[in-house]
């Protein structure tokens, strides 16, 4: 059995005391950095990159990977407690996680997040062990037409996610796409909608949009007197535990989320975000509990968390097997390897098997550490909600500003964040949700890029999207999802009328 031999090699690399120690240090620091608003996995990995120069390559990679998924988890904590997602994929967790916190069930939401993340990550690791080489080839089958169709699916899923009707969702997606067009156009090199401001030449930063729409607007809303009476005085383990019925209801969604996540994770660039949105949209259609989605349904936390953590693991497949990073965070990981003179690529698995399999096995340990570390900490995080507003919110604003500034060391970004905060506040007043806007903003520019590339390559023939089977299938699923989203809505309205 090849797989067993590989795993044995992986264990012998990952289970050394030094690697275990750095793995633990990585997830620990990653979690704490990730909790800070505006500081996502990219910033966390960048901060700790210099430390890795002094470590052997396996240890460096194990530690940085720990920081990466530790920060992913930390981002979910802020999403649930304060409605401030660290990453676009965590904005899906806000949809049900934050209502749970408002109902005084923050502990349960955090507990479920820890378990679902662990489950999703384990699922992703198993997929990696069994299918790595095959999935790398699969990523190569995706041309511009297929990517375009994946983005369409992601956007349809995002509109369906909205709790105030698909129409409002679609409007927000479109606004997001429009905001995404600011900056240099990839195909002509011309700047669009920058108003002559040099800082906007590369577009508006994603973290800036997310922190403004979610974080700042949350603070404004709360300062305007929204009551927060959900802080519980005593915190015991009992209060974190979901009810028996909730455990049972979560099993199937966890599997569905992790499968969706593992699939989308292998696609460079978009994986995690599309995975959480598609997973959530799918669940919202098929769940028996669908009417409670957006009001604190436990499945609404389980699905995006298992999906995005499975995707976080499988995202390593194209990075390590093809040597081509799928995201900025992955580019940083490759950078860490390169500084040790290792060139990632198709030969990495055969030439440095101890590194590849050691890393995969370290995911097992890292996620286990994450679980052990976080369950006792839930009480601490929930206590954060007991901090009086007049201390908590100014601190949150300061942290957001620091986080936003640290991305590009730009003061301009802080002002833009505050602007988006005001926009977010008015959107709340008129019941428009920020999550679909955010995914429109992320996927819109990519969709345009892939659409125009596919059209360039086909010399202007739009049939290319239907002639390629992968693309046609994805577009078909999108149409079905859209129709599906419209139908039960109408049926329910008729019942009411």
């Amino acid at each position, binding site marked *: 059995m090849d797989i067993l031999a590989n795993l044995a090699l992986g264990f012998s690399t990952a289970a050394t005391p030094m690697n275990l120690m750095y793995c633990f240090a990585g997830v620990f620091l990653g979690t704490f950095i990730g909790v800070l608003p505006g500081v996502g996995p990219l910033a966390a990995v960048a901060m700790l990159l210099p430390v890795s120069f002094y470590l052997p390559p396996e240890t460096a990679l194990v530690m940085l990977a720990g920081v990466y998924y530790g920060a992913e988890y930390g981002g979910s904590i802020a999403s649930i407690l304060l409605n401030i997602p660290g990453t676009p994929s965590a904005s899906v967790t806000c949809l049900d996680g934050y209502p749970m916190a408002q109902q005084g069930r923050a502990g349960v939401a955090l507990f479920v997040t820890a378990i679902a993340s662990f489950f999703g990550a384990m699922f992703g690791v198993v997929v990696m062990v069994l299918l790595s080489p095959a999935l790398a080839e699969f990523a190569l089958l995706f041309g511009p037409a297929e990517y375009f169709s994946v983005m369409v699916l992601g956007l349809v899923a995002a509109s369906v996610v909205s709790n105030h009707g698909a129409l409002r969702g679609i409007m927000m997606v479109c606004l997001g796409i429009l905001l995404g067009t600011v900056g240099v156009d990839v195909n002509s090199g011309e700047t669009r909608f920058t108003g002559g401001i040099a800082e906007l030449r590369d577009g508006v930063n994603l973290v800036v949009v997310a922190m403004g729409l979610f974080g700042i607007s949350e603070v404004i809303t709360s300062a305007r007197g929204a009551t927060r009476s959900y802080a519980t005085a005593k915190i015991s383990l009992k209060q974190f535990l979901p009810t028996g019925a909730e455990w049972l209801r979560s099993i199937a969604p966890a599997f569905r989320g992790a499968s969706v996540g593992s699939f989308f994770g292998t696609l460079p660039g978009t994986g995690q975000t599309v995975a959480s949105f598609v997973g959530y949209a799918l669940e919202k259609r098929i769940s028996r509990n669908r009417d409670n989605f957006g009001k604190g349904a436990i499945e609404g936390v389980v699905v995006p968390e298992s999906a995005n953590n499975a995707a976080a693991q499988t995202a390593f497949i194209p990075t390590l097997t093809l040597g081509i990073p799928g995201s900025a965070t992955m580019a940083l990981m490759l950078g860490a390897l390169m500084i040790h003179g290792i060139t990632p690529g198709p030969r990495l698995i055969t030439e440095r098997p101890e590194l590849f399999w050691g890393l995969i096995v370290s995911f097992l340990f890292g996620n286990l550490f994450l679980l052990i570390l976080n369950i006792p900490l839930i009480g601490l995080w929930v206590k954060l909600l007991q901090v009086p507003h007049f201390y908590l919110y100014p601190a949150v604003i300061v942290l957001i500003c620091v986080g936003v500034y640290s991305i590009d060391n*730009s003061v301009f970004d802080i002002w833009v964040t505050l602007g988006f905060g005001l926009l977010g506040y008015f959107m709340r007043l008129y019941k428009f949700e920020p999550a679909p806007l955010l995914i429109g903003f992320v996927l819109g520019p990519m969709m345009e890029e892939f659409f125009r590339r596919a059209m360039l390559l086909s010399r202007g023939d739009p049939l290319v999207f239907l002639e390629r089977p992968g693309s046609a299938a994805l577009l078909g699923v999108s149409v079905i999802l859209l129709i599906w989203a419209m139908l039960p809505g109408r049926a329910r309205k008729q019942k009411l009328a």
Partner: protein
Amino acid sequence: MINRRHMLSLLGLAAAVGITAGSTSVEAASDWPEKPVRILVSFPPGGSSDLVARLLAKELGEKLGQQFVVENKPGAAGTVAAMALKEAANDGYTFMLSNLTPFSVAPTRFPDTPYDPLTDFTHVSYIGTVHLGLFVRPGAGASDLESFIAMAKDDPDNIDYGTSGVGSWGHIVSVDFTDKTETQLVHIPYKGSGPMRLDFRADVVGAMFDAIPQNLPAVADKEAIPLAVSATERIATLPDTPTFRELGYDIVAENWLGISAPADIDPEISAKMDATMQDVMALPAVDAQFDTWGIIRSTKTTEEFTDYVASQFTDWKPLVMKASDK
């Protein structure tokens, strides 16, 4: 530990406040550096140029007994970082990893660029250069440049090629190439080299103009055939690949790297920085690391480097304008 960069910038701030308080004491160049030194980088963390800066920062810091802090200021083709450098105090505590795009290309491409690549800066140390290659897929049907050009002439507007973006050096060189070879190719722009190489491996685009180092593994695996390189003579990592010049096309492109400072810094500080840079780059470990990154080193004095930046700007100017028209 939790937030090293912010702590360092706080330290820097504290130090700055200290200096303003005792502003009567004139700082002697021989004492430089007395507080952490910033190196601005015009790329996000993780790229090869960012790694160059981080490696140099570590070694410079050890040699001079002060922290050298890498500060990423990506954006607007590197002009955001260059503007920040221009506006920084010329006290020897801010440098930038200068390179081709913001200093040789952007001022021509964006006429409203608010700095002059020569008069607004002190160009201190030259580091080295990376070259560009024209690569094709093994299945594309061309094994050398002549057969590629013949294919392009047989069927104009049929061959697709990728570059890492409109206005990138690959794009500028490709326009020069089609001009000098009198061929018509279809340009497929990408957002950076990574996504382009993915499509190249998947046979979505059959040819690309890209920096050489990141493509060496693909060449070794016979997944990419290098047809020609943009250097003045053959390069060590691709000894069998001819230069464009050898084949009769006068195409040369160097993506240079250096260390620059704001205008008029103390010449003594500049000299000390340059001397330390030369020491650091002579270290066998640094030299070997530059080799693996494919950076071709050569020595230039501060004066030679300044002249080089000036000549690069004038050399690129007509090419950039030609590419902007298309």
